[in-house]
């Protein structure tokens, strides 16, 4: 978890639903200003109600710095919306058209060590045929509506009923459900690289080792003289349990290792 979490709770205005959230509590204008000074590079601020927003605006107007992000559980339309956007880099608020997770689920997502891989809210950009999904880090992610394609015999994605559920792990468009994991895998290069890396690290098979070693060496399956690409593919998929010693020798020679050491990669 990279960014500190700052919960703005003016005295007497504590939010019961966020009671379990592990965050720094800010009760006064001086608390807010001190927090900005301490976390000048980046922080996530949570404002659960209108008094919290008023406190934030009073304390931070004209003092904005760094990459500050705000999650407001209170709608912030009109002039206040503009004001908050002038102070914070990203503002996610329960405005008209933005659907946030229920507050108890929000608290879990914000407290998760992988909050950037979960969604806290969603909005539909109808004119642009797109969905804006807000991650637990409050970064927005834009997904074309067309990506939520209908399966044969499955439900249509209904943008008018867009929401996030399952503690940020599912995007719902009416009866249609999409896995957050699938969305991120498709639209976030960094997430996909992390997922791939984990997948490769977990594969302890001989085929997995061969594949890692081949890719480390920047080789294609067609780069092994005397062994067909199809044969390499079959070994990597685990379809050939005991490759022929001649095949192994040829593969090892091309990779610059001893045949018996391939499995160690």
């Amino acid at each position, binding site marked *: 978890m990279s960014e500190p979490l700052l919960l703005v709770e003016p005295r007497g205005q504590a939010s019961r639903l966020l009671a379990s959230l592990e965050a720094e509590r800010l009760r006064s204008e001086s608390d807010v200003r001190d927090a900005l000074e301490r976390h000048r590079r980046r922080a996530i601020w949570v404002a659960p109600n209108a008094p919290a927003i008023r406190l934030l605006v009073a304390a931070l107007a004209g003092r904005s710095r760094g990459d500050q992000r705000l999650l407001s559980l209170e709608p912030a339309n009109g002039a206040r919306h503009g004001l908050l956007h002038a102070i914070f880099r990203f503002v996610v608020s329960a405005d008209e058209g933005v659907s946030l997770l229920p507050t108890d689920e929000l608290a879990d997502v914000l407290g*998760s060590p992988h909050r950037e891989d979960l969604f806290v809210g969603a909005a539909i950009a109808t004119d642009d045929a797109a969905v804006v999904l807000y991650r637990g880090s409050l970064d927005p992610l834009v997904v074309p509506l067309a990506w939520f394609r209908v399966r044969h015999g499955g439900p249509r994605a209904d943008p008018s009923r867009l929401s996030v559920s*399952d503690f940020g792990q599912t995007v719902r468009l009416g009866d249609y*459900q999409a896995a957050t994991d699938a969305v991120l895998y498709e639209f976030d290069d960094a997430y996909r690289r992390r997922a791939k890396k984990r997948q490769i*690290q977990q594969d302890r098979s001989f085929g997995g080792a061969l594949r890692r070693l081949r890719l480390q060496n920047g080789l294609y399956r067609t780069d092994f003289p005397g062994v067909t690409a199809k044969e390499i*593919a079959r070994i990597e*998929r685990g379809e050939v349990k005991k490759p022929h010693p001649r095949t192994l020798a040829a593969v090892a020679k091309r990779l610059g290792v001893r045949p018996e050491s391939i499995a160690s990669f």
Partner: protein
Amino acid sequence: MTARRTRAGALHADPTRAVGEPRLEVKIRDRERLEPPHVTILHRTRAWRFDVRSEKLLDMEPDPNEVPGEVLDAVCANLAPLRAEWDRMFPENPVVSREPDDE
């Protein structure tokens, strides 16, 4: 484990009765990462993908040991309908197919 579909949509199985934990769900959603065919066990902010081909958990994070054994038992006991459901939802990537070359 009881299972229901949301109007021909995602499969949603409720293993609550198996483990007495109301926040546990087993799902196949309309849009999933397709490789390999799987169901997802969801518990609050955590999720484990269970490969319905190899009958193994796909991910080492979160810790697979934290999946309640009763839930895995319930998934395994319902493998045939879960596989059929996957094939119905994703006929382009059926459970019996071989994984494609990924190069």
